[in-house]
C-alpha cells in the first residue's frame, strides 16, 4: 500500500458533473486517467438525456417500437430495471416525463439560470414493468421516456475503473460528483461526507479501503423549495421524506447509487440501514458505519 501523500489527481467534467481520478503518483495514473475520461465521454454520448444525438434519446423518441440498442445501453437499462424490481419501484427509470414536468427540462446550469419551461402537474411513473427487452433491442411503452441519470453515472464509474485498471496502474479511485469507488491495492483513503447545506463543510469523515460510496441529496440540483431532481415515483413529484441526504456504501458504485437513492426516498421509517450516513430535515446526522478499532499506542 502506498502513502496517501503519493497520490496524483486528474480532473475533468462529464455527465454534467466534476469527475476526479486519483491514483499513485507517476505516468501510469496519467494513462489510466485518460482511459477513464474516454469512457465517461463515451457513456455520456450514449446515456445523456440532454443530447439529442445520444442513443438514449433515440430510444426515447422511438417509444412504442422495438429499437436496436448497443450492448452498453442494454446493460444500463437492465441494471435500472433490476434496481426497480429490488426496490419495489422506488428506483424508476421511467421518470423522464415527471422530472421534466418538475422543471428539470434542460442542462442543470441552464435550469439554475432560470431558462426552463413552467412547472407542470406531476406525471405518473411506474411504467418500467411494461418495458420490453430482447437480446439487443428495447421497447419502451408509448409515451414513456427513460432518465438513467445517477444510475448511468454509477455504472460508468465501475466501467471506467475497469478500463483504467486495464492500463496496469496499481490502484484507482474515481469520484463522479460524489459517486465514488476505489479498486486495486490502494492506501486507506479518507473521504469527507459533505454537509448538505455547505459543500465545503465536512459532516463526518470515513476511511474507505474498498468498494464504493454514493450520496443522494435533495439540496443539490434544486431550483427552489421542493423543486429538485429526485422524483418520487409514488407521487410523480420531487421527493418529500424526512431525509435531505443519504450516503451509502456498497461493493460497486452502481449498487451504492441505488442504495443511497433508495434510502433517501424511503426515509428513516424502516430504520437506518448499515452502512450509511443519513441527514434528516431537522438537522440530525445518523452515522451507521462501523467505528475504527482504536490502536493502542
Amino acid at each position, binding site marked *: 500500500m502506498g502513502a496517501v501523500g503519493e497520490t496524483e489527481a486528474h480532473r475533468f467534467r462529464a455527465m454534467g458533473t466534476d469527475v476526479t481520478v486519483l491514483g499513485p503518483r507517476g505516468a501510469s495514473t496519467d494513462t489510466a486517467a485518460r482511459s477513464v475520461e474516454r469512457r465517461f465521454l463515451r457513456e455520456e454520448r450514449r446515456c445523456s438525456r440532454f443530447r439529442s444525438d445520444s442513443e438514449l434519446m433515440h430510444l426515447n423518441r422511438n417509444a412504442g417500437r422495438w429499437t436496436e440498442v448497443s450492448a452498453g445501453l442494454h446493460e444500463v437499462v437492465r441494471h435500472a430495471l433490476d434496481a426497480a424490481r429490488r426496490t419495489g419501484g422506488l428506483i424508476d427509470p421511467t421518470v423522464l416525463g415527471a422530472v421534466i414536468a418538475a422543471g428539470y427540462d434542460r442542462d442543470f446550469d441552464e435550469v439554475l439560470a432560470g431558462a426552463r419551461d413552467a412547472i407542470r402537474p406531476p406525471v405518473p411513473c411506474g411504467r418500467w414493468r411494461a418495458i420490453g427487452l430482447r437480446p439487443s433491442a428495447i421497447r419502451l411503452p408509448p409515451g414513456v421516456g427513460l432518465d438513467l441519470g445517477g444510475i448511468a453515472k454509477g455504472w460508468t464509474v465501475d466501467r471506467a475503473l475497469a478500463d483504467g485498471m486495464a492500463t496496469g496502474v496499481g490502484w484507482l479511485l474515481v469520484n463522479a460528483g*460524489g459517486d465514488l469507488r476505489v479498486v486495486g491495492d490502494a492506501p486507506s483513503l479518507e473521504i469527507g461526507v459533505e454537509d448538505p447545506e455547505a459543500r465545503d463543510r465536512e459532516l463526518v469523515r470515513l476511511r474507505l479501503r474498498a468498494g464504493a460510496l454514493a450520496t443522494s441529496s435533495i439540496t443539490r440540483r434544486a431550483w427552489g423549495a421542493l423543486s429538485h431532481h429526485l422524483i418520487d415515483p409514488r407521487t410523480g413529484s420531487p421527493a*418529500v421524506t424526512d431525509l435531505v441526504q443519504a450516503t451509502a456504501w456498497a461493493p460497486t458504485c452502481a449498487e451504492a447509487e441505488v442504495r443511497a437513492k433508495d434510502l433517501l426516498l424511503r426515509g428513516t421509517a424502516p430504520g437506518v440501514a448499515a452502512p450509511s450516513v443519513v441527514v434528516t430535515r431537522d438537522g440530525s446526522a445518523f452515522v451507521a458505519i462501523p467505528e475504527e478499532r482504536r490502536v493502542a499506542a
Partner: protein
Amino acid sequence: MTTVTTTDTRRRRSRWPAQRIRAIAWVTGAATFLGSVAALAASPPPAAPTRSEGADAAEGVVVQRRVIRRIVIVDTGAPVANGPVSVVQPPSAPAPPAITSTGGS
C-alpha cells in the same frame, strides 16, 4: 327596364353608410381588445410548483440554511480493524483535508 330600376333601388337601401360601418368596426375592435384584457386579468397567475398535501405540510420545515445540530453514531456492533469502510475517529488536532468527498451532485 322597370325591373332593373327596382333592383338598383333595393341595393342602395341595403347598403350601410361608411361612417356606420367604421363605427361598428371601432366598437367591435375595442370590445375584443378590452375583453381579452379582462380575460387575462381574471385568469389565474402562471402555474406555480404543484404541491401535494404532504408537501404543503413539509413546506414549513424547509429552511434556507439547515444547521446540523447533532451527529448520532448508530451502534453497528464491534469496531472493525480492516473493514471496507469505517468512521474516522475525530482527530484531537486539526486534520489535513480529506482526499476527496461525497455529497451528491
